[in-house]
């Protein structure tokens, strides 16, 4: 098998799959964003009206901005929490590494919704935390703690994403040539300085990859805000869903999705100025 056909046989199946279930739908959505309605000959027209009304709608733009801040916060906290975790696994855990790694993944074996509901049971008015505070006399009346707020959305999604952010960081730390650190010690470099000048820079590709792992999907989140966000925790994804499901305005929903795609690309562009795109892939 020559090099080219081997490349084709490796890349072909996932490539075709991506084309069919990712690029084609995005193309369809792009076309829809210029239509005047869902279906019927009357709507087979080309119009920029949807884009114009999106640009006029400050509410949509504000929420996109707010959601971008929320997801950058989530990705930031997830990365901050995942880094020490991955560091410990690579440099300190030794033989326990595999066990600890498995423990990290175990929660994802249960349904996400189930975990959210149990959070609500713990933090809700008749939940464990309220009962404890009531019996200690610290509060007089039970009320939901933390949930139904923007903070709840952030806390929940950070909890969900930490393990996934830890994986690329773990991989990046493991690739570091340990003899570099030994050399640093031999030459009298203090540990913290060796970390700042060797470990951290070499692990940055993993950090960036992990950051984007969390950032991109959370920008379009709509399930978590619906369940724990209350009225102040709505995100942009909820409005897209409203356009598709409630208003039956698929063209507007498509415009909003396109705007989000642009926002994601813009965020990636801005953040990759700190590192090259190939770093993101972890090469």
């Amino acid at each position: 098998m020559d090099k080219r056909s081997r490349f084709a046989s490796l890349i072909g199946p996932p490539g075709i799959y991506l084309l069919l279930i990712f690029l084609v739908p995005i193309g369809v959505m792009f076309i829809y964003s210029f239509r005047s309605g869902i279906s019927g000959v009357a709507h087979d027209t080309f119009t920029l009206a949807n884009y114009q009304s999106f640009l006029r709608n400050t509410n949509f733009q504000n929420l996109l901005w707010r959601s971008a801040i929320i997801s950058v916060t989530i990705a930031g906290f997830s990365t901050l929490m995942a880094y020490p975790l991955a560091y410990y696994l690579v440099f300190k855990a030794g033989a326990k590494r595999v066990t600890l790694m498995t423990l990290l993944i175990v929660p994802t074996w249960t349904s996400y919704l189930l975990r959210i509901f149990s959070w609500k049971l713990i933090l809700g008015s008749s939940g464990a935390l309220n009962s404890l505070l009531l019996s200690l006399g610290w509060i007089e009346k039970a009320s939901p703690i933390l949930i139904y707020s923007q903070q709840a959305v952030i806390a929940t999604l950070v909890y969900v994403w930490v393990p996934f952010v830890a994986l690329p960081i773990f991989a990046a730390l493991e690739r570091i040539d340990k003899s570099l650190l030994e050399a640093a010690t031999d030459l009298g470099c203090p540990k913290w300085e060796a970390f700042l000048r060797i470990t951290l820079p070499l692990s940055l590709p993993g950090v960036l990859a992990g950051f984007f792992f969390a950032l991109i999907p959370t920008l379009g989140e709509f399930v978590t805000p619906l369940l724990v966000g209350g009225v102040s925790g709505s995100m942009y994804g909820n409005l897209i869903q409203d356009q598709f499901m409630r208003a039956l305005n698929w063209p507007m929903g498509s415009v909003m999705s396109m705007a989000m795609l642009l926002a994601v690309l813009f965020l990636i562009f801005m953040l990759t100025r700190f590192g090259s795109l190939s770093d993101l892939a972890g090469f």
Partner: protein
Amino acid sequence: MQPKTKYFNILLLLVAGAMVLSACTPKPVTGTLTLLDWSGYELPEFWTDFATKYPEVKVEFSFMSESADSYAKMKSGTLVDLVHPCSNFWKIMVDEGMVQPLDTSKISNWKDVNPALALQGQFNGKQYWAPWDWGFESILVRRDLVQNVPNSWADLWNPEYKGHIALYDSGETAHVITALALGFTDPWSTTPEQDEQIRQKLLELMPNVLTVWSSQTELEQMIASGDVWVAASAWNASYVNMVDQGLDVVYIDPAEGRGGYLCGFAIPTTSTNVDLALAMIDAYLAPASQAKLANDYGYGIVNTAAIPLVNQTTADLLSLNDQNIISRTIFYKYLTPEQRDSWTNMWSEVKTSQ
């Protein structure tokens, strides 16, 4: 002989044989009947009569999460023999030629269907929809957690409920209940000035609102946990479930009237199984199926002959026999695309204003 032609000849022979056989003996009707339905209604107990009459017909269900979902699925090419959205989607589906008129003379249980509810399924003088299930949308209150139980939709604005109300997540519902609270008699024909008043009034309600709800289970969990004291637009099924759990709840009869939804079956224009589909509607309308719907799920029913089969407590909880409440119930009406758009946008803005 090429293998392909050989197989083709064998196939021909088989088909011919089958045709001869079927001409000799009366074979039971075969085929497949497909439904786009809500999950929970696929249970065979709901269509016993059909299964008895057509044991050889395969019945297949695909599921819809809400009425808009069934509309979207049909628009994107899903082919089924029966579809089951609620009445606010009936007219749009008729207008867009998505469903066909029903020959009610082929539905033996049709004579017992509540005429007022059947009327809602008529368009252009033809019966397109067979109503099947309905329910109230009213205010469900944890009596043990509030000082004053609300008496009207307007009472939702009482500051006592600050941070403890759940509103149904739909611009349509938000518009309607606020219009009722403001005293507008027909929420479906409001002027632009009234729409603005509604928007302002809803903004004033938001400090009282803890969250929006969109699934029955989710709402019931929040009422049971005590996070939500006052659940707006809750369905009577939730009331029955909360009473069953032993909670001290009350399902009020608001001064402006309860809201109501009505859902039912129609046969898509694309269906080629019309007779089987009609037989399926007939089976769903049978008194035993309807009584099961009321007794097990706590939903309102349309077959008057089924009411004696509903157990008394459930019938009372559902106010099935209380004509006074039913006649004042404000059922969802058809929305124009403009209303659908502007109410959704208004609600998107209001609910994200906090």
